[in-house]
């Protein structure tokens, strides 16, 4: 019997070695494999190259991984944000390397790795600083720049549901980088809200077929869902809206 489930996030990430290239899914809070990132921090692998759309926000998740000095280089499209102070500090101190890639080229380069494409000509970035030194070519009257695949040793992604074969479905815009990163890594680790029985995911609706997934770990339902239904009550980062109220209640009690 094929069973890709592993019992804990610790076991899921336990063999990520120092120096590995690790893709991390998510765009904002959506699709961010929070529990896997925390496990990677606890695991402590160093000298990592991270591929993500951003370079961490606030002091948790990817930012905490950076703060823990585990990351040598980051490949991303949008490092600088209002709350990217951890990255900003490391970058200005020369302690982290940055490869800046336009978001669509980032996605297409990851997709190319998964689909066995050796390189491709993209119109994005032509004539800009980010195409400097890259091969350019005019095809049918349009200018293109040659871009190469981005592969990884591991991908850490977050999906809504999996079965034991590793078939995945996502939720809304939390899909983002998950499906392509799953295809581009030697070992893909998916955290999911729940593992359902084989056959419970309709074959027409599978977004990531299990062939792209090596390990599945159930981490429980997101706070804004109950029995698979959206119930709200959180902010955009997924923190309870009534948290303060609760604290105040406790203070009052």
């Amino acid at each position: 019997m094929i069973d890709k489930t592993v019992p804990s996030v610790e076991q899921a990430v336990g063999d990520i070695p120092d120096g590995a290239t690790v893709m991390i899914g998510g765009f904002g809070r959506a699709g961010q494999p929070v529990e896997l990132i925390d496990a990677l921090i606890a695991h402590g692998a160093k000298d990592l190259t991270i591929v993500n759309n951003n370079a961490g926000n606030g002091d948790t998740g990817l930012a905490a991984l950076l703060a823990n000095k585990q990351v040598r280089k980051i490949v991303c499209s949008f490092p600088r944000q209002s709350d990217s102070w951890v990255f900003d500090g490391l970058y200005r101190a020369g302690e982290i390397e940055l490869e800046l890639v336009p978001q669509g080229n980032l996605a297409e380069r990851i997709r190319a790795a998964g689909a066995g494409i050796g390189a491709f000509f993209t119109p994005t970035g032509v004539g800009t600083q980010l195409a400097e030194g890259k091969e350019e070519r005019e095809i049918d009257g349009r200018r293109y720049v040659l871009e190469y695949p981005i592969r990884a040793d591991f991908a850490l992604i977050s999906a809504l549901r999996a079965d034991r074969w590793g078939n995945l479905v996502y939720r809304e815009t939390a899909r983002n980088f998950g499906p392509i990163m799953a295809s581009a890594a030697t070992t893909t680790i998916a955290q999911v809200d729940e593992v359902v029985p084989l056959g419970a995911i309709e074959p027409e609706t599978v977004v990531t077929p299990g062939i792209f997934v090596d390990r599945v770990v159930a981490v429980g339902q997101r706070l804004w869902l109950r029995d698979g239904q959206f119930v709200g009550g959180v902010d955009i980062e997924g923190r309870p809206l009534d948290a303060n109220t609760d604290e105040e209640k406790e203070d009052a009690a």
Partner: protein
Amino acid sequence: MSTRISRDDLAKRIAADIPEGAYVNLGIGAPTLVANFLPDDLEIILHTENGLLGMGPAPEPGLIDPDLINAGKQPVTALAGAAYFHHADSFGMMRGGHLDVCVLGAFQVSQDGDLANWSTGAPGAIPAVGGAMDLAIGAKDVYVMTDLLTKQGESKLVESCTYPLTGVGCVSRVYTDHAIFDVTPDGFAVREAFGDNTIESLAELTGLTLVGR
């Protein structure tokens, strides 16, 4: 001082130029205002590059869904008829020329339609590009929404950009607080001048030779 229309009026003006059935991406920042002025009785389909077509307005505060956000990472909703897809498919949609209109902000637009909107090129600044370069080439028509002048009074319409480029020859029209300009083979053409602005006054403000309409 010459007439300047408000941000909201400019957003309204852009919204009026978007036809029913158009597939539209509104860039982060001021361009998102355009959504507020799309007529309720017309169906215009909004794309957000993080994987959604058929984006709807912001949810009620208690119903924020962290899984359902726009490219600016703000909470949104999905309309009946919406579709989700992954990042490679989403950017393929843009790069493949399937969107009708992108509306973007700008630091500078050159008279050849070059766009600079991702970096001031200031030394020591941490670069970040996001989807800007994909959006710049990602629609049949790329509209820029911007003030005509910087806070220092310099024209954002220029002969050639001095800021780092986002895209080459990609802008089709520039909506500013003073006037609307089309990018033509002969340079900027004044499509519509607001209030007391004239081709002559705009030429003086921009320092460019402008084409009439």
